[in-house]
């Protein structure tokens, strides 16, 4: 059984029609924009934009369910830990202090802290869909051809696309091996001690590396036999020329990016947006 949960699937949406190269540029522009700001208005704006894009690209919830669960757990932990380790960080940033509730001793829940943490969570929540869109809508080979077009060596491009392509296979290998080892009694659950579990992971990794090496061996022979590396250049069956939708997409993302920078340098004059003053 092939696990198709988190890999490229070919659909006919606007986003799928874009070339891998322009999607990469858009992805980089938007993530840089988010990294460059703590202004919740902008972040929410980008978030709405990226969820709209996800809708357009016809990604189904079932495809990303597992991923979202992990992200959810991570965000909850992150939220709690940020509060535990730096409960006054929001106060420090915004320079005011509005206490809502006193939890315990030094631990006050302040509006500033809440605002800071919500902003931070929103940042994660707007980046993640962008990454998901990129991975799920980009044909690895087509992406490789675009990378090659902007000057990256085709050997690197091919190995990148093969990695993306074989990732689901290696993941299912990992799954099979892990189950087989568990059937021999390997305890991978939380019941085992950490030191035990590290040792146990080795019992899965060794066979995984062996089988992956086998795979690499076969594929590299197959590639050699069909003339891979014959010339300094190669052509691409899956290459897609840049079209109107690509230019429009890049333009939109560039505008968002510039808007973010403008807000940061000329409106907020700081990475943070401060509603408290």
């Amino acid at each position, binding site marked *: 059984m092939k696990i198709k949960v988190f890999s490229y699937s070919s659909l006919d949406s606007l986003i799928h029609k874009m070339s891998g190269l322009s999607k990469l540029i858009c992805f980089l522009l938007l993530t840089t924009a988010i990294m460059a700001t703590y202004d919740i208005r902008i972040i929410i704006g980008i978030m709405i934009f990226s969820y709209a894009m996800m809708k357009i690209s016809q990604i189904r919830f079932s495809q990303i369910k597992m991923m979202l669960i992990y992200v959810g757990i991570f965000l909850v932990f992150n939220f709690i830990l940020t509060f535990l380790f730096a409960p006054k960080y929001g106060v420090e940033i915004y320079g005011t202090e509005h206490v809502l509730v006193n939890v315990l001793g030094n631990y006050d829940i302040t509006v500033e802290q809440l605002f800071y943490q919500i902003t931070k969570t929103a940042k994660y929540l707007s980046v993640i869909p962008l990454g998901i869109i990129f991975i799920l809508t980009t044909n690895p*080979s087509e992406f490789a051809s675009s990378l090659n077009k902007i000057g990256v060596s085709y050997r690197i491009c091919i190995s990148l696309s093969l990695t993306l392509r074989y990732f689901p296979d290696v993941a299912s290998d990992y799954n099979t091996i892990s189950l087989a080892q568990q059937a021999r009694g390997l305890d991978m659950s939380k019941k085992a001690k950490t030191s035990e579990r590290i040792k146990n992971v080795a019992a899965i990794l060794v*066979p995984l590396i062996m089988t992956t090496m086998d795979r690499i061996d076969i594929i590299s022979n197959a590639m050699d036999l069909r003339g891979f590396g014959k010339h300094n250049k190669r052509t691409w069956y899956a290459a897609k020329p840049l079209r109107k939708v690509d230019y429009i997409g890049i333009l939109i993302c560039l505008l968002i990016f510039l808007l973010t920078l403008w807000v940061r340098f000329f409106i907020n004059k700081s990475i943070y947006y401060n509603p408290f003053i």
Partner: protein
Amino acid sequence: MNDVLIEFRDYSFQYFEQSQPTLKNINLKIKKGEKVLILGPSGSGKSTLGNCINGLIPFAHKGKIDGKLFVDGIENKNSSLFELSNHVGTVLQDSDGQFIGLSVGEDIAFALENDMVEQSLMHERVQKIANIVDMGQLLNQNPHDLSGGQKQRVSLAGVMVDDVDILLFDEPLANLDPKTGKIAIELIDSISKNDKTVIIIEHRLEDVLHKKVDRIVVMNDGSIVMDDTPDNVLSSDILHKYGIREPLYLTAAKYAKIDIVPELKPAYLETFNVELCKDKIRSWYESNHVREQKENNSPLLEIKNISFSYDGKRPILQNVNAIINEGEMVSIVGKNGAGKTTLSSILCGFIKPDEGTILMEGKDLSQYSISERAEYIGIVMQNPNQMISKTMIFDEVAFGLRIRNVDEDEIKEKVHAVLKICGLYEFRNWPISALSFGQKKRVTIASILVLNPKILILDEPTAGQDFFHYSEIMEFLRKLNENGQTILLITHDMHLMLEYTNRAIVICDGKKLADKKSYEVLCDLDLTEKANLKETSLFDLALKAGIDDPLSFVECFIHYDRRVRSNEN
């Protein structure tokens, strides 16, 4: 038509990392348009010979060459892998592993991409070649979603797109179910009629001989031991001598004391002149046929109404019921993707069925975790590399016991006992990397046996093995079974099922199609067709010889054959 296309002249090859030459003084000529089978046990050098022709040797695998090799007029060692790839197209054995492209079209185009063919021209050529192999409609499919036969077509198109004259098939039948294998051989045959020179490297002789070949080259230990017409090769004692399985109908004919001579045209069942030896076959049948004795019927494992689906829509298993009795050795057969592996995953508790229960000695196993189930059901994976995680044999076998915190003295005792059963005791302090594939397989079996499971499940225990190693593994399993071990085999090897298991459970499209004697399954045309199996040639032989009850003839053969084999061992 008589031009020599490939010529080996006193050719020897030795890998740098090996102390002995792999090919010794090879002299061989292959003419344009010929269809040649290169036959030999594992390690005979047949794959190495193929790699010399396609240029992997010496350009990807280095070594020392003596003598000369010409391919299409080019001397191999002065050429390059790229130049040779314009003359020789190679289809590797594992078609799954060799797909580079994400879609059928892209995969076919790979060689053209490397040749810097312009995109629009490339699309045109790909379409044309795909039409030839009947895949023109499926260019946008992911190769991994295709059926086994379609995958073969894509691999073939991928090498034909270069317009090569020589097509080399390295074990094309490995990993294919019997019917798909038959289709593959037919496909190769039809291609060879287009003025291509075809070289097939295989050890599954009977399957290749489904269609005619011009010549068989038999290899053993790095040398060519015979190079003759199929009829002459099959009439000689060379197959038996070098551990290659002859077609079953010939084994039967030999049991009937028929002297196999070229005049009988023994190479293909269609040409085999049964008329001349009918009487001997019939009299052998009359004197040997016996009724089967009663078998044991105390259920050990009960599979009850198992249904399963990954997405809640497309059922993988539907209401499957079966009983495995204590001390039995049973096969589960069916085409690739029929649900066999899913069933074994359910038995081991890797996945939970949507419905139904698994009872072991009447106990419901659903509450047991994977590792707790291991005490009842042990599974041995197809590829030993998927299981081996230790360097030393002893440690690998002891692994499961150590996890269970068994006392080290007891571990030693148990591991030694199991290693003795598995014939690995002398090697106990060896590193696993020094073992052959068959021995590694035995290590993985030992590492499961040591946990003393009530049922041992093996997934394709003999996949990719030649006859010698096949017999070695299977005879070992039979001895285990005779000592009371219940064994369940998941396989699509018809020989295995016929020769070693009395009963077979046939699964097709998630449903149980049949549960009966193995020879009955392989004599049921309708059933074999549905489950991608192939009826046994014994059945056809019996028909040809005019035996009224061919089923009973096959049964008679199986019993006789088992007696012969256990006397040999």
